[in-house]
């Protein structure tokens, strides 16, 4: 495969903003070919973990390897889906153009996207059911449609490892089902997909691995082994409403 069957190896990774640690001493190895939910309370450092793996925030300690090599050597193997709110959707561009950005990493400096990139972008839009909206200005898309465009852009990156920051936040039920189906398909193709996820109810149904995070790594492993009441208690602490939700989720999944 790509040098190693371990898709993501994180060693002693810590990230701090203004001297306050956000994630602390994260250590794990993630075998390739899993669909992983990253769960934890607000402010647990879930987005920061993704950004730390991607080198978008400077770590205070630790290192990351993607398929056995440092990230900067493996960029083409990695696709990133940032939070939808992180970009200006009033930007003058259309859906097809945004998806084409997924190809930029494969083009060198000075090379412009051409016919081939356009064809790939169309294919990816079709895969997320957005081909009819290819030429629509992005501000005229609904939240769910914007999220699908972001996913299509990640598909266009043709990566082995995907890191997605809340791709299911604020989307309608139809889009959620479509996205979850797509994520499962990616896993079946042997890709590794790491998803920051809020809805504990759907974790056991769709994700075969779980990473529980609350500043420190609480647990990582196969959902059946790791997604337990005890671990959720450790992750969410005394937040009773969330615990109730978690218990409910567990009762549904068992």
């Amino acid at each position, binding site marked *: 495969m790509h040098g190693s069957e371990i898709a993501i190896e994180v060693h002693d990774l810590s990230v701090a903003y203004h001297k306050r640690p956000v994630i602390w001493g994260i250590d794990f190895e993630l075998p390739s070919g899993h669909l992983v939910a990253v769960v934890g309370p607000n402010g647990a450092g879930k987005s920061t973990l993704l950004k730390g793996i991607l080198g978008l925030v400077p770590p205070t300690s630790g290192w990351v390897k993607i398929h056995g090599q440092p990230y900067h050597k493996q960029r083409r193997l990695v696709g990133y889906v*940032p939070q939808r709110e992180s970009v200006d959707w009033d930007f003058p561009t259309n859906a097809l153009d945004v998806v084409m950005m997924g190809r930029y990493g494969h*083009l060198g400096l*000075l090379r412009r996207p051409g016919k081939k990139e356009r064809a790939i972008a169309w294919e990816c839009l079709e895969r997320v059911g957005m081909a009819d909206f290819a030429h629509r200005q992005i501000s005229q898309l609904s939240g769910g449609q914007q999220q699908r465009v972001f996913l299509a852009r990640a598909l266009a990156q043709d990566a082995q490892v995907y890191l997605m920051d809340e791709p299911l936040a604020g989307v309608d039920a139809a889009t959620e089902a479509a996205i979850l189906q797509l994520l499962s398909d990616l896993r079946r193709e042997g890709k590794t997909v790491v998803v920051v996820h809020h809805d504990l109810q759907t974790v056991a149904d769709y994700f075969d691995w779980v990473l529980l995070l609350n500043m420190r790594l609480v647990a990582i492993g196969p959902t059946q082994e790791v997604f337990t009441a005890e671990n959720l208690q450790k992750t969410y602490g005394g937040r009773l409403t969330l615990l109730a939700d978690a218990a409910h989720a567990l009762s549904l999944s068992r």
Partner: protein
Amino acid sequence: MDSYDLAIIVTGALVAGSCGFIGSFLILRGMALLGDAISHSVLLGIVLAFLITGDTSIVPMFVGALIFGLLTAVMVQALNRGGVEGDAATGVTFTAFFALGVVLLTAFAGRVHLDLDHVLYGEIAYVPWDLLYLGDVAIGPKALWTMGIVFLIDLLVVGAFSKEFKICSFDPGMAASLGINVALFHYLMTALVSLTTVAAFESVGAILAVAMLIVPGATAYLLTDSLGRMLGLSVAVGSLSAAGGYLLATWLDSSISGAMAATAGALFLLAFLFSPTHGVISRALARRRVGHRGESMLQ
């Protein structure tokens, strides 16, 4: 229309075109007032250049202005990263630079005739007489050549790195994850803004330069949904403002740069009201249509 008129219109169009082109990126990044800030903080660069070289010729002053234009942007970015809000960071930086420039000017350069109106704030009406010589042959107005070359540099750099500038403006996080040096492209863009603004001040004055950095881009933003077309339209709107403004100024016998800037403002107002996609009136009409359809569906 004689060659005098033509020189002014073409120079005005080049200023408006290059400022509009580069200004479009500032608008998309919510940094529209950076040009205004640069117009003030270059004073410090000019005064320092004079104090260091003792020379009032244009080259050292241009370089000094350029350096402080760039430094303004670097400083705003640094303060911003340090936790100061964007517009406050801009305000703090340029007022401090400008004030320091005034202090140095009055303390050390007071006795020397440093004619800022002449050095910094050019006047477009004099453009046709300030000629550039190649040997003994006059090859046309200096400002026309300066702005032409600056515009060409802007086009070449943005053209060469179009996809990098686009993704850095739209989604810096994604750009960084692809290994694009977002900070480098930010400073490259800032250098272009600085170059264009300083060259435009020198050629045609501050009002026109600041107006053209913002207004044509803002107008184009209302008329299209594509970045490429927005850039093209901002150049077209800028050029139209220059030509229309000159006719207006001749008719009223008024300030040429003022009339060009005012024309740009009028074109913006037209786009704001009547743009087919973003215009206030067309949106109101669309709402009414939807409303009627809704009513007829209910009946």
